[in-house]
């Protein structure tokens, strides 16, 4: 009988232990991350800034969203298509609720798109082709476009849907109106259908998110709380990661990458960003604004452009300036985007001897002087890249006078307003970076950077040097409206060949997205530098 009692006791203890283990409460998974800038507003239409859009995309969802490979997938819309070339039709998901309790219907979609097109919103650029947004029934929305726009669904992937009833109740029908002195309610408060809700908002200090319990999708994350801190100083941010106070940092200063890599328990997550950094020439005027060459414009001669191209050693820039964190490119569009052509992405060789020969042929055997414009706080190592280019051009006889300045002044100098877009550019030689953020498609690059600047059609608005090629313009307009993929791809190939062989620009590289995190954080880094929290797991 003693043995029986003993056995019973052991069994009881074992069962109790298992029961206790089994009923352990799930431990809270808090995720703390930091960035040098804050999310400037909780209003998803306030600014067209990547960080604001990606942060608010955790709270407000679009009709279609991007999956891990940047392809479109259903979100608040379950089916979509073009019944005719100038029409889009979206069938909406049923049974979705906003975190405030309101039901999601077509009214909210119509309201949101009109708000995004309206006063105070900075996302209106995505709606240039839209004529009317129409509710057909409670769960069907139709959009009429002024001309065929095969990329509208891509553009709408950026627009989060807001609740019409909530916005009207709180007087937030328009995104912030700078002429009034009261702020818009949506700047500090939010109500979306997305995977997270904002619990605490302290602007420029921290923002706390919590999972949205009523979310329609199945969470791939295991977070119970997300704390976002703003830490502006690079050294402090890195120190916070190393000391363990922060789990992940979104912007990593290049000089600390190696140090973080070597630190046990921390890792670097990097990959090419969709942004291409390139150099451009003023090819519009007959005499350059900042050069010692009088009476003619050397950049109008293809040989001079090729000479400049071949004088710059992008691999050396990658090695020394970018510390390996760039992907040299011959194209103006990055890997993974629609319109990237692997065959044509071959850079003409770095050849300073050939440069000197070409310059001599073109009539500049002793080179010449020219001014260069560069930002110093916009792209990764922008000023350092320009300085390296200056040194390389000096070796082939070109004396470059570099003006690097803060982006507020820099863009004011090199960009022209739409009404002045056909006037002479103020710059002779400049650096710019571009990501076809809205559509992830090369046409955005063509119409913004490469088409001839035109004040009526609003093309070439960021073609700061005024490069112009008729055949290219023709093809770009056709590409915009062509819905047949095979025909469109063929035209894209031809366009790419034209600008590459014409040395229209000097594409340098795709800069890298670099994040740093603790080893126990599982996350996904898409090439567009978005940071979807719904994929984050704390192990």
């Amino acid at each position, binding site marked *: 009988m003693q043995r029986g009692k003993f056995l019973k006791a052991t069994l009881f203890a074992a069962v109790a232990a298992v029961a206790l283990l089994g009923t352990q409460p799930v431990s809270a998974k808090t995720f703390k991350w930091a960035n040098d800038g804050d999310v400037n507003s909780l209003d998803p239409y306030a600014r067209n800034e990547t960080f604001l859009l990606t942060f608010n995309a955790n709270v407000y969802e679009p009709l279609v969203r991007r999956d891990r490979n940047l392809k479109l997938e259903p979100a608040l819309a379950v089916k979509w298509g073009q019944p005719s070339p100038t029409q889009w039709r979206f069938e909406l998901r049923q049974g979705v609720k906003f975190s405030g309790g309101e039901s999601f219907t077509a009214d909210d979609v119509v309201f949101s798109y009109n708000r995004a097109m309206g006063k105070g919103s900075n996302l209106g650029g995505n709606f240039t082709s839209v004529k009317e947004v129409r509710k057909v029934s409670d769960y069907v929305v139709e959009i009429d476009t002024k001309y065929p726009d095969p990329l509208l669904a891509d553009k709408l992937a950026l627009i989060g849907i807001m609740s019409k009833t909530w916005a009207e109740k709180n007087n937030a029908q328009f995104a912030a109106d700078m002429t009034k002195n009261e702020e818009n309610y949506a700047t500090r408060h939010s109500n979306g259908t997305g995977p997270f809700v904002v619990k605490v908002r302290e602007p420029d200090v921290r923002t706390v998110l919590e999972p949205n319990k009523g979310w329609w999708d199945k969470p791939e994350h295991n977070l119970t709380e997300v704390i976002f801190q703003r830490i502006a100083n690079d050294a402090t941010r890195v120190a916070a990661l190393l000391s363990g*106070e922060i789990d992940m940092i979104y912007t990593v200063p290049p000089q600390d990458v190696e140090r973080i890599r070597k630190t046990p328990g921390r890792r670097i997550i990097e990959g090419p960003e969709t942004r291409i950094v390139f150099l451009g020439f003023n090819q519009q005027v007959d005499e350059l604004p900042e050069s010692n060459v009088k009476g003619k414009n050397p950049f109008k001669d293809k040989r001079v452009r090729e000479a400049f191209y071949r004088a710059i050693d992008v691999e050396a820039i990658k090695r020394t300036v970018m510390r390996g964190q760039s992907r040299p490119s011959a194209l103006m569009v990055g890997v993974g985007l629609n319109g990237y052509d692997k065959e044509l992405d071959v850079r003409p060789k770095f050849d300073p001897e050939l440069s000197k020969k070409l310059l001599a042929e073109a009539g500049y055997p002793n080179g010449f002087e020219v001014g260069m414009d560069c930002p110093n706080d916009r792209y990764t190592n922008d000023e350092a890249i320009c300085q390296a280019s200056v040194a390389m051009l000096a070796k082939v006889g070109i004396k470059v006078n570099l003006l690097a300045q803060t982006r507020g002044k820099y863009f004011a100098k090199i960009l022209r307003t739409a009404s002045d877009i056909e006037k002479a550019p103020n710059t002779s030689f400049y650096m710019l970076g571009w990501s076809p953020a809205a559509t992830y498609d090369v046409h955005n690059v063509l119409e913004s950077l490469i088409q001839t600047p035109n004040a009526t059609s609003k093309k070439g608005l960021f073609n700061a040097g005024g490069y112009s090629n008729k055949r290219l313009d023709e093809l770009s307009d056709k590409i915009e409206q062509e819905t047949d993929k095979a025909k469109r791809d063929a035209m894209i190939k031809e366009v790419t060949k034209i600008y590459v062989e014409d040395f229209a620009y000097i594409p340098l590289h795709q800069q890298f997205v670099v994040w740093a995190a603790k080893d126990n954080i599982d996350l996904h880094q898409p090439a567009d530098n978005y940071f979807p929290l719904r994929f984050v797991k704390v192990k």
Partner: protein
Amino acid sequence: MIAFIIRRLIQAAFVMLAVGAIAFAMFNYVGDPVAIIAGQDLPAEQRVELRKSLGLDDPTPVRFARFVGNAVQGKFGLSYRTTEPVGRMIADRLPATLELSIIAAAMALLVGIPMGVFSGLYPHHWLSRAMMTISLVGISLPTFLIGILLILIFAVILGWLPSFGRGDTVKIGFWTTGLLTVSGWKAIILPAITLGLFQMTLIMRLVRSEMLEVLRTDFIKFARARGLSNRAINFGHALKNTLVPVITITGLQLGSIIAFAIITETVFSWPGVGLLFLQSVIYADIPVMATYLVLIGFLFVLINLIVDILYFVVDPRLRSQAAKVGGAK
């Protein structure tokens, strides 16, 4: 005395107007806010509308007059960057900066004056020499370097103190304070040291040299001859006489501590007005910059006014002079 204060306040108004006018003239050169706000994709008509709604095309005097007119009513406009009211943004962050500055100044005084007295009384003591050497470090190292070194040692290597932020704060009325929580105190130590180190060494050296000079004067000799105790001489007479320059310097320095807390706030991500100002410069956020500059102008004037009043309190000679001038017949 009252007339004196009123005169000073009127001067303050003029100073603020002057600062505002100069600031506005400079804002033409900070860059184009529309380029920064609008980003790359905004279509042209909306850019033009944005310019108009911000009033950027009006001439500078008109914009300045509009700003002054609104400011007098307490309306400082909306920030270009966050679209929040500027007045509230600054009011939210002012407690953080003021707390940090006051703690830093208090530390500078509490450590600097005793150290100064000690090294003034016993200039050849080894402790005095050690303090002088360390003070050289405080004066010559730039603020951000000191801050980063402290973070490296105390946050990363030792892990005793946090490397950023303010810790947990308690809201009392409109003031948020970090001094009522343990994490708040832990968070304020490193930034306060960083910010106050320069002032502390300055005060220490000043008190020391003043003490050395005062101790040589005749009236101290006579006091000793009279047989007064060392304590009475050193603290009752000598120290009091060194205080006038110390108060002047401290007053001026307090203004500059508040204004230049920018660097310390950036290094420690301390959510104060300085950090806000720096961000606004990068974004060409003119409403915030203008309001901040005018506020700092006002603070300097106020502090100098208090310093001048303190002279009257501390130095009896000034009081009697004023009385004579004031109109004793």
